[in-house]
């Protein structure tokens, strides 16, 4: 018989805040030490990992916990990235960068939104879009949902390419203010994991798990399927929007096709490889895959074998599916 560790009951006030406080303290002490000890290149990688942790963890809310396989997550990241960028972009720079149609939203020539409200707005807009798209699309089952959400991603990227007066089309936006750093990225990592943890420890999270396990049963126990599917999809989209905004303000340049299929593939396989039924599985997958990418990149360039990283990712994915379907942190749970 398989034992699953779920009995820890954090459902008291101190049961929530003590573990979170300890975890948060530990995280930032470690980051502080890293910041002192490690060089900038490695800190850069750690920051990128943080951004992907937010993306992968939030995607896992639908793909892992609710059993809705979405391939549209980067669409929401794109929305978050563009929204926050357009808000933080200096009005005076807009004309210079050929973005004339942009509303000057609040303030004069040198005004620009502060980072936090811009970032939050990006997340909220992504969530609103998820609400609108989710209502029709989430009625579809497994495979259809995968293709429809992939279609959503493609629609979003082509729109970003097509609406030139807002987005500068395929050439993308450069000289984005550099706001994201190790600290605010990891604050958002902590927030994402905390909120997801709370969702999973309360009624909505249990409803999502129920939907994954058996829609028939969930329904007959009073769980409104659409409501909780939307709940998962929209919360996931919000954090995707945040991840997108952090990403844009970290790399300082974005182009529509950055957010298309290959990024989707990375983010989708992170939870699967790390373990999609564990709160920290996606984070582990993200760390592993991104670290691997930075490790192998020099080799790839030196040898001139482009595609090596993706090739290894794909082989890893197929191997995990065949031999360890629960992922690295997953317990073998193929009981029938």
């Amino acid at each position, binding site marked *: 018989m398989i034992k699953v560790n779920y009995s820890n009951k954090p459902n008291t006030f101190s049961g929530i805040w003590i573990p979170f406080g300890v975890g948060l303290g530990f995280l930032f002490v470690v980051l502080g030490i890293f910041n002192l000890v490690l060089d900038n290149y490695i800190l850069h990688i750690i920051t990128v990992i943080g951004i992907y942790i937010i993306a992968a963890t939030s995607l896992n809310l639908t793909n892992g916990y609710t059993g809705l396989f979405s391939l549209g997550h980067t669409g929401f990241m794109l929305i978050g990235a563009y929204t926050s960028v357009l808000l933080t972009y200096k009005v005076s720079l807009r004309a210079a960068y050929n973005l004339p149609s942009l509303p000057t939203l609040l303030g004069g020539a040198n005004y620009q939104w502060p980072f936090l409200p811009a970032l939050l707005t990006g997340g909220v807009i992504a969530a609103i879009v998820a609400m609108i798209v989710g209502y029709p699309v989430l009625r579809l089952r497994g495979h259809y949902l995968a293709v429809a959400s992939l279609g959503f991603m493609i629609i979003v990227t082509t*729109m970003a390419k097509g609406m030139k007066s807002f987005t500068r089309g395929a050439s993308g936006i450069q000289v984005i203010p550099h706001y994201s750093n190790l600290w605010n990225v990891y604050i958002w990592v902590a927030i994402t994991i905390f909120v997801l943890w709370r969702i999973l420890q309360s009624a909505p999270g249990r409803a999502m798990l129920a939907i994954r396990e058996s829609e028939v049963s969930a329904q007959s126990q009073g769980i409104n399927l659409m409501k909780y599917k939307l709940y998962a999809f929209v919360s996931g989209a919000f954090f995707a929007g945040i991840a997108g905004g952090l990403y844009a303000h970290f790399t300082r340049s974005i182009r529509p096709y950055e957010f298309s299929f290959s990024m989707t593939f990375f983010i989708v*396989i992170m939870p699967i490889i790390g373990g999609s039924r564990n709160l920290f599985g996606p984070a582990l997958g993200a760390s592993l895959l991104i670290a691997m990418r930075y490790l192998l990149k020099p080799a790839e360039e030196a040898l001139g074998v482009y595609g090596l990283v*993706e090739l290894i990712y*794909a082989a890893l994915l197929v191997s995990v*599916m065949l031999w360890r379907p629960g992922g690295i942190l997953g317990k073998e749970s193929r009981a029938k």
Partner: protein
Amino acid sequence: MYGASYIYQQIFNGIVLGSIYALLALGMALVYGILGLINFAHGALITIGAFCFYFLLFKFNLPFVLAIILTISLGGFVGFLSEAIGYRKLRGGPGLSLLITSLGIYIFIENAIKLLISPQPYAFFNPPFLNRIINSFITFRVIDIFIIITTIVIMICFGLFVKRSKIGIAMRGIAESVETAGLVGINVNQVITWSFVVASAIAALTGFMWGAKYGQISYNMGFMPGVIAFVAVVIGGIGSIPGAVLGGFLIGLIQIFTVGFLPLGWSVYRDAIVFTLLIIVLLIKPMGILGRRESM
């Protein structure tokens, strides 16, 4: 506004593109019908077919017909391999694991090509006879006619195969019930392998068509046509092979019309329009145009 000749030209172009989609959708529908799998790896066969033909004809200077035959065979073989390695063990497990695995196989093949051949696109030269331009009421090249005729021939052969041959009937039987098929004595594994081989062989051939038609091939050329082929299956009606073909032609026409008749800026949206159409169809008629109602 538009002359008759322009309109016919667009329709013709739409049919050529639609032929390619229809052939892809054919194989996709076959595999989906049997395994319930959206085979993302189907798109990779297009790339494999295109590069295989390119090397055989231009690097090894094989005769055209032989190059085509070898391309098709290689496609079939890759289909066989992917089923044997990737999917067989996962059958009967959670439905999504097949889908995720097919994503993995797609990315694997795509990057294997990128790594082994080139990350840069190749110019695809046609054998000269295919490039001859014919100017009449509408303008076209011999390759266009080649695509249309090949498509028709394949469809007829495929139709006869599925309708008449023992294995074809077994494929339809398995699509209805794997369990019953096993009961009456059908070797289910063998038939499933065959359907992958047939679908992949056809997809490899479309790779050649794509290259010959558009003059450029690259490691990631197969993704979009592969996904669009599945959209064609859904729009036409899951479980219906004629539906898949119809869906393929419909999407081909719509994409060409998007570019041909809408204002210039709209051509960017041609893929987006396909998916918008998909979502609309799924909402209004979830079973597709010719689809049967799936039982509970």
